[in-house]
């Protein structure tokens, strides 16, 4: 799955074959091939890492660690399967490990001024405020729930792939996405109402 593909869009067969070829070349030490994989998945890896680690710098460090860890594990990648979920599992683990190591503090309650959803002077500021509120709300969710909703609604992975990424049953993923959406949709609805 391409990082820039639309959510839910199935991975074209040719893209998967191309990725398998890029992996094969990367494994042989081809810098350009590895660079193309990094470019293709950088944004997605950083978003997923940020779903776990609120600090953008920590998230980038985790995403970088994940790419380098993936490089050392490329020989274990099954080219018959899509590369994205395999990489995202490494990203999620790297982010979780980093969060544990650094003992990142639990999210604070939503700031009062953000909960109120007051009007902002311009669209840019409104988007920034909404983004901040969503990040705050996301941070209040359990980690697995955060990852599930981001992987499903942002990255477009199907439940079955997310189950493999998170190492949980598919039904658990459905439940996690459901609960996360309920919370986040409520936030969006409040935001719209307040505007």
């Amino acid at each position, binding site marked *: 799955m391409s990082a820039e593909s639309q*959510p*839910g869009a199935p991975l074209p067969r040719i893209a998967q074959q191309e990725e398998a070829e890029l992996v094969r070349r990367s494994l042989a*030490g081809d*810098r350009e091939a*590895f*660079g193309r994989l*990094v*470019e293709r998945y*950088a*944004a997605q890896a*950083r*978003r997923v890492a*940020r*779903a776990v680690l609120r600090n*953008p710098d920590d*998230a*980038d460090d985790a*995403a*970088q660690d994940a*790419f*380098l860890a993936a*490089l050392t594990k490329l020989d274990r990648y099954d080219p018959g399967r899509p590369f994205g979920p395999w990489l995202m599992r490494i990203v999620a683990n790297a982010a979780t490990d980093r969060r544990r190591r650094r003992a990142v503090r639990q999210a604070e309650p939503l700031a009062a001024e953000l909960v109120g959803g007051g009007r902002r002077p311009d669209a840019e500021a409104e*988007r920034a405020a*909404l*983004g*901040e509120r*969503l*990040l705050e709300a*996301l941070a209040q969710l359990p980690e697995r729930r955060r990852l599930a*909703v*981001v992987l*499903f*609604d*942002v990255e*477009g992975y199907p*439940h079955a792939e997310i189950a493999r990424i998170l190492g949980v049953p598919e039904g658990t993923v*459905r*439940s996690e*996405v*459901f609960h996360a*959406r*309920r919370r*986040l*949709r409520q936030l*969006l609805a409040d935001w719209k109402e307040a505007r």
Partner: protein
Amino acid sequence: MSAQDFMGFDHHPDPELGAALRAALEPRDQAAFVARVMARFDQARAVVPAWEVLARWAGRGIAAAALLALAAALALGRGQAPGSLDEALIAATDPGTSVTTALLVGEGPPDPGTVFAAVVGAER
């Protein structure tokens, strides 16, 4: 939450929520991040050839050490064998003993000149 709510809720991605979350999580300066990862990739690759070079050096080092050890053994053993041609010839005066045999049964290494003489003599 009813069972119907749960079953009918999450089969497809929610474009509105997905877009809002994507905007919130969207990282900045993608090119800088990619460059950073590739710099680490280059560092990692630079380490591997260094080890390969060390491995090659190790191979040559072992060979050199073996040669040195052999040379040292030869030097230590000098004097205990029929090192000179004269000694070899004397040893060869015994019935059934050639110069070459005398050199081979000696306890120490022969003098190169002796070996040469033995070889030349054998060719005659």
